[in-house]
């Protein structure tokens, strides 16, 4: 009896689903490693490796997941807030990432230059410029959603198609290379730890402090649950929705800089492609309702790294990158179907029937 209540306590835990899916992915890895006769724990192995340029770095599959999944984790932070406050998704984040990367590289290389190793302006100017463009994009989306009452998906559809195209225009339809080690820093290693992960952690800490230490987190949830009631209670609903889009744009800018720095170039066509889907998926995987209201930041972050873990696992299993989406789709459908209210109600009903039977007998 006692055991059962612990189990139901675990099941009732808000992060049950995201943590379960992450554990499941790890289990698949272990089974696969056992099947091919490798060390069963090779998934968790972290070793120190010498590289030609950077000296010593941490190496291992987990490190790789933490490194590669950081952009989606950063985006998922902003997406969680947007989904919570406005019950809609910001589908422009991938394109905005690309625009920020292009603008940053254009500033650093100078307009019309396609490859350079010396920076035209100080690094800080380029990076802050890129992030600034992200903030402007976020403000544009926020204005449309909060003040013009346009459905979030339609409002962000504008920048979804325009931002990437503007980025291409800024780069003259070329891939701008900034071959400079100082710019490459954001996508490489800080000591032994991957810099993208450090940036993601800093973003997570700042955002969660902002939400916990100020009332913003509660305001966002209350606007998401009922924006009219919040307004009557004295909250400026519009400004709060606007703020969440601004934060989302800012984080998209940061993710864009990281993505550009990783390849030390602005590949407008490919940076951030389908990242908006991954970010939305991370929010849904984290157990957050896409209908707005209450949110769990930790869930979204775990969701983001789970997606990366799935991708890495699929590559390890020998699935090619173009075929991987099939499995992703199946996993997504399974996870959301389990959460679906009609199925939940069905299970509850069956459990209740079982209990009644137990009492009678």
């Amino acid at each position: 009896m006692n055991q059962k209540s612990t189990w139901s306590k675990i099941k009732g835990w808000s992060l049950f689903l995201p943590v379960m899916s992450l554990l499941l992915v790890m289990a698949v890895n272990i089974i696969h490693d056992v099947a091919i006769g490798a060390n069963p724990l090779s998934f968790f192995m972290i070793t120190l490796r010498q590289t030609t340029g950077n000296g010593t770095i941490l190496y291992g599959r987990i490190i790789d997941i933490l490194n590669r999944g950081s952009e989606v984790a950063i985006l998922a932070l902003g997406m969680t807030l947007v989904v919570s406050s406005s019950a809609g998704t910001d589908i422009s984040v991938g394109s905005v990432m690309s625009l920020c990367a292009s603008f940053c590289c254009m500033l650093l290389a100078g307009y019309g230059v396609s490859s350079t190793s010396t920076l035209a302006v100080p690094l800080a100017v380029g990076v802050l410029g890129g992030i600034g463009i992200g903030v402007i994009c976020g403000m544009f989306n926020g204005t449309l959603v909060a003040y013009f009452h346009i459905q979030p998906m339609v409002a962000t559809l504008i920048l979804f198609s325009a931002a990437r195209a503007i980025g291409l225009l800024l780069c003259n339809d070329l891939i701008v290379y900034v071959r400079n080690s100082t710019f490459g820093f954001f996508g490489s290693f800080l000591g032994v730890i991957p810099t993208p992960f450090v940036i993601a952690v800093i973003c997570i800490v700042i955002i969660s402090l902002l939400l916990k230490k100020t009332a913003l987190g509660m305001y966002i949830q209350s606007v998401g649950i009922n924006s009219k009631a919040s307004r009557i209670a004295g909250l400026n609903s519009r400004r709060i929705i606007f703020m969440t889009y601004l934060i989302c744009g800012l984080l998209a800018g940061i993710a864009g800089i990281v993505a550009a720095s990783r390849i030390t170039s602005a590949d407008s066509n490919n940076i951030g492609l389908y990242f908006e889907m991954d970010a939305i998926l991370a929010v849904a995987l984290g157990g957050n309702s896409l209908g707005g209201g209450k949110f769990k930041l930790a869930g979204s972050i775990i969701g983001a790294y789970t997606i990366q873990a799935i991708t890495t696992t699929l590559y390890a299993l020998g699935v090619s990158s173009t075929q991987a989406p099939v499995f992703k789709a199946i996993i997504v459908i399974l996870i959301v179907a389990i959460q679906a209210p009609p199925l939940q109600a069905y299970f509850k009903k069956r459990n209740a029937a079982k209990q009644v039977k137990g009492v009678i007998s």
Partner: protein
Amino acid sequence: MKRQTKMNGHTILLLITIGLFVVLYAGGCIAYGSKGFAHLQTFLNILITNAGLICVTCGLTIVMLTAGIDISVGALIAMDCMILATGMRSGMNAVVMILIVLVIGIAFGIFQGFLVGYLEIQPFIVTMAGMFFCRGMTAVICTEQVSITEQTSKLFYAWANAKINIPFGGYINNKGKYMVPYIRPSVVVALLLLLFTFIMLRHTKLGRSFYAVGGNAVSAAMMGLNVKKVKLCAYMLSSIFCSIGAVCYCLNTMAGSVSQATGLEMDAISSAVIGGTLLTGGVGNVIGSFFGVLINGTISSIVKTNGKLASSWPNILTAALLFLFIVIQSVFAMMRSRKK
């Protein structure tokens, strides 16, 4: 009385859409008349290149009327084209392949509709998974580009190159030869589908129930409509129309490849929105969506005729138009709510 003013608001939006198309097209004719933009054939070419998109937008309009969204259409087109191309390469008959594609479309639509309607999962997530699935399946079938030639299927090749001449509006080209304007069979299919959707949405019980469910699902259920079934039907129709669109699309490209029709779902959504369909459901018209497609087509046609503009301009211009339209829509909505 109230209802009349509401109807008027939507009619004005539709008129603005049509007016904008006329202005855009007339502007193109004046600016690039010397490059042949004013010929009837240019307009027909817009129809030919966008035949697939018209079919997809019809289906998407229905889904959007029920307050849903279907972003799997682009990927479904890629998968259908790949199935058509590989099937014909292995010697299957074109008619059989088209039937197979349609059946796949129906099955896919029913599955998505079931998840949205009966399991109440958000449409965005379901169709996003559908998109991933179709894109991935395309790669599973074949990762390379498979083209359809005269050798692989004579029948399909003949359809793709068939011309339906139009008896008026021809012109004499600079070699002194009279050019008869023509359309392709795919345009006929697309226009028939448009007509079918228009009549269905206007005059059938199912068509009206799409509006009812999108307008307010709870009151629709109280009225005795089977909301779940209506939603399932919407997604099924969307996928069938999309499969028909895929055949039209394939007749244009004559190939199947993984990267085909990427971003087509967004073109279709923006066309429907420009045409006055609201994503919140219950409001919209398939004729508006048709003009939305034409506006998109005209923009890219103008950019192509100019020849000097960068390839990213159509995207930026469409986005700017979308911006203009949704701001007008929202101003209208605000004015209406103030009147009340």
